[in-house]
């Protein structure tokens, strides 16, 4: 067996190895991109990276485990405040603070997930919605700790001197955020392709059959929620580092809703879909803003046009592409393949027949 063949066989059997290959590939691509683009685009890259971290966790929850959450924005807030308190007040270094933020958010996610595992559909939506609205009130209640409306500021992360004196801060932030996103990619890829992922899909598709097979439905759902919460916590912590701020205004209900939107628009349940979703959440606001202000409209119309476009995109996407971008891409790929095989089988047309 050739080396290449053996490698291919190994990649086929080992999820761990396959995920590592993907992570390294994605890492190289991100590194090249971040070096090539401007500071502003580096910031956008960082934004996309922390959105991806959250969306990957949410797609695991909503797509694989079949639970809905309108409260992931509040879980991001938990991660953001955790890292702001640890780095800003306690003077922790960055990496331990990020790890601690993830652990803290997961610990918040466990009781929430245990509660969520008792609820279905709209009741779960209502409970998580109340969580998203209720949690930011804590920042107002304890202004001494959480800084009230103004929130907490964080000093910008300092790029190591080995990278050179002129290394731009934005690129360093993009690297930090992308590293976090890659960790999430690695973890979620392995979870989806593990026994746990299979258990989640079984629970999603048929709870009663799953429990007859010996799966503990509540526990599987709680674990899914905790993993998803941990990802949201990391995303929130990265957001706080990139914006150098943790503030209740950064985590409104709209954030939770647009996260869910990103997951569904990208394609529910797939990691590639989460990438699409993160790209949409990062780029769409800018595009619609530029588009709206490129016409000579009155301010009242121009200011509201981006929102209107966003609404139309959501409605149209659900009517035309109900399975999201990734679903559309997959369907397109499938259709192309059918056409190809159909072309290959069809005998050559023997001229003479009129227009068909």
């Amino acid at each position: 067996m050739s080396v290449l063949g053996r490698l291919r066989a190994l990649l086929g059997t080992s999820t761990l190895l396959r995920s590592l290959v993907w992570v390294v590939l994605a890492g190289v691509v991100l590194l090249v991109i971040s070096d090539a683009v401007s500071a502003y685009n580096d910031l956008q890259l960082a934004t996309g990276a922390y959105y991806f971290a959250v969306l990957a966790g949410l797609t695991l929850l909503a797509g694989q485990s079949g639970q809905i959450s309108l409260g992931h924005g509040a879980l991001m807030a938990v991660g953001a405040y955790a890292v702001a308190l640890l780095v800003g007040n306690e003077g922790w270094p960055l990496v331990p603070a990020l790890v601690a933020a993830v652990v803290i958010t997961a610990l918040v996610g466990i009781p929430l997930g245990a509660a969520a595992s008792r609820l279905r559909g709209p009741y779960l939506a209502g409970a998580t919605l109340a969580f998203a609205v209720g949690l930011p009130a804590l920042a107002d209640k304890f202004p001494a700790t959480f800084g009230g409306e103004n929130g907490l500021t964080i000093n910008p992360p300092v790029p190591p001197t080995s990278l050179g004196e002129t290394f731009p801060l934005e690129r360093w932030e993009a690297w930090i955020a992308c590293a976090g996103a890659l960790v999430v990619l690695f973890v979620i890829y392995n979870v989806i392709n593990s026994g746990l992922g299979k258990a989640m899909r079984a629970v999603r598709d048929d709870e009663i059959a799953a429990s007859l097979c010996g799966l503990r439905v509540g526990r599987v759902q709680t674990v899914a929620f905790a993993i998803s919460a941990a990802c949201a916590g990391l995303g929130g912590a990265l957001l706080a580092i990139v914006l150098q701020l943790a503030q209740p205004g950064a985590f409104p209900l709209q954030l939770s809703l647009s996260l869910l939107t990103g997951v569904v628009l990208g394609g529910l349940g797939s990691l590639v879909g989460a990438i699409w979703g993160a790209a949409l959440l990062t780029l769409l606001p800018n595009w619609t803003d530029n588009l709206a202000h490129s016409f000579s409209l009155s301010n009242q119309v121009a200011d509201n046009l981006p929102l209107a476009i966003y609404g139309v995109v959501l409605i149209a996407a659900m009517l035309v592409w109900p399975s999201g971008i990734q679903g559309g891409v997959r369907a397109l790929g499938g259709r192309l393949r059918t056409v190809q095989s159909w072309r290959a089988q069809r005998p050559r047309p023997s001229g003479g027949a009129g227009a068909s």
Partner: protein
Amino acid sequence: MTKFIDLTLSGISTGAVYAAVALALVLIWRATRIVNFAQGAMLMITTFIASAVISSSGSYWLGFGVALAAGLVFGAVVERVLIRHVENAPPLNAVILTLGLYTLLVAVAGMIWGNSPRSFPAAFSLQGYKVGGTRLLFSPNDAFTVLVVIAVAAGLGLLFRFTALGLQMRAAAFAPEVARLLGVRVGRMLTVGWALAAVAGALAGVLVAPSVFLGPNNFDPILISGFVAAVLGGLDSPPGAVIGGLILGLALSYVSGYEGSALAPLAALVILMAVLMVRPGGLFSATKERRV
């Protein structure tokens, strides 16, 4: 003691508004198994229409009637044009669709009427009743609000229980296939459900607009509270929606009166979680078994 009475009375009147929104959500949930996140924006639009009619004609009651009629048409149109296409899609798609509709309506309202809130007239005086020298936090307009919501809830109860239309709507909601075999026009019943829901929503909008003012985003908190109230009561039960609305209105009134309004959202979370942990299908959930 006066404070307690005041908080109770104002809790009842805000609770009545929550109940009306919750009723709208429950009607839609029963008909199509969809949570209508666009409800807040729909009632915002009908209230803007009412405002335009009132300021051009000078008659409050004409505006009131137009708002309800606009709601009726609006609800039916939204169901026929948009919702019909996602009724059999995965539930999350319907959620995203109604969120998209919400976004679009808020933007359109901002384009037409601007983003800064404006005042909206009340049907009756907003001055509190005077009892033995003290002025209560309960005005004739609050009394009107409570009475109208009670009347609508009772009317809906009568409709569902005693009329052929109500029976057909219940049949279409609970067993669409059997109902269709028996000659019920299921699709039309779903449209009627959405239309009625939008009327209840439009009513809530007109009733609450004098106190929250009229702007594209001013009704968002009402929708959130209405949704929490509906979940609290159980999404399948119209009486549950009313009771849930009143419980939430009273609880939030006490919490913001005694502990400060910043804690109100947190209190809503705690109450909802406490109820759902004991009864995962809301207070008035009827079915115990889970659908497979």
